[in-house]
């Protein structure tokens, strides 16, 4: 089942912060975050595993609340290069099926 992302879109000025949320109605094994620039392929940002282990990006952080089946992506001091569509993907078990939400369009203006 597709995870739900919010907000659908957000506009920032350079240097501002943003939070993107992802929630699922099913128990989660892991949450994955990707960013897609217009006309390009999605690119991996981060994985959050059940049990708290986190792997990924230097300048972007995230949290994973296993009990609430929710994850949040935190972008602080945003840069122009952060613009794009952010997707969360979820795995509900130890299989490899990765299902993505509909995405959050982030626009960072000067």
């Amino acid at each position, binding site marked *: 089942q*597709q995870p739900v992302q919010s907000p659908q879109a957000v506009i920032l000025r350079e240097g501002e912060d943003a939070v993107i949320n992802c929630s699922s109605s099913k128990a989660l*094994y*892991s949450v*994955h975050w*990707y960013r897609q620039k217009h006309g*390009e*392929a*999605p*690119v*991996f940002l981060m*994985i959050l*595993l059940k049990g708290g282990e986190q792997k990924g990006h230097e300048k972007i952080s995230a949290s994973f609340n296993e009990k609430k089946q929710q994850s949040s992506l935190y972008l602080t001091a945003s840069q122009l290069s952060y613009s794009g569509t952010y*997707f969360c*993907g979820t*795995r509900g078990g130890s*299989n*490899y*099926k*990765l*299902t*993505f*939400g*509909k*995405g959050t369009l982030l626009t960072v203006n000067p």
Partner: protein
Amino acid sequence: DARVTQTPRDKVTEMGQEVTMRCQPILGHNTVFWYRQTMMQGLELLAYFRNRAPLDDSGMPKDRFSAEMPDATLATLKIQPSEPRDSAVYFCASGQREGDGELFFGEGSRLTVL
């Protein structure tokens, strides 16, 4: 520089025609995914393979879509017959079997069905 290769990059076809999209995963990757991207639905999972075996294709319209991995270096997604509602960007992604690692996406195949 290892990358996932997809062909064709762009395809325009008429309704009713057969369309085949191909994907070469990164050497050594054991999982392959096919996703369809539209404005309305975002990234929809169509099918995925592990060690060339299809594990889940519940996201595909079975009557017209088929996905195969004839060998470890080639994955195919076929639509027959194609319909205008199939117009989308189709992405292939590959990953490694061990651990919960990242997926590497190809550039995508943009399909337009007239």
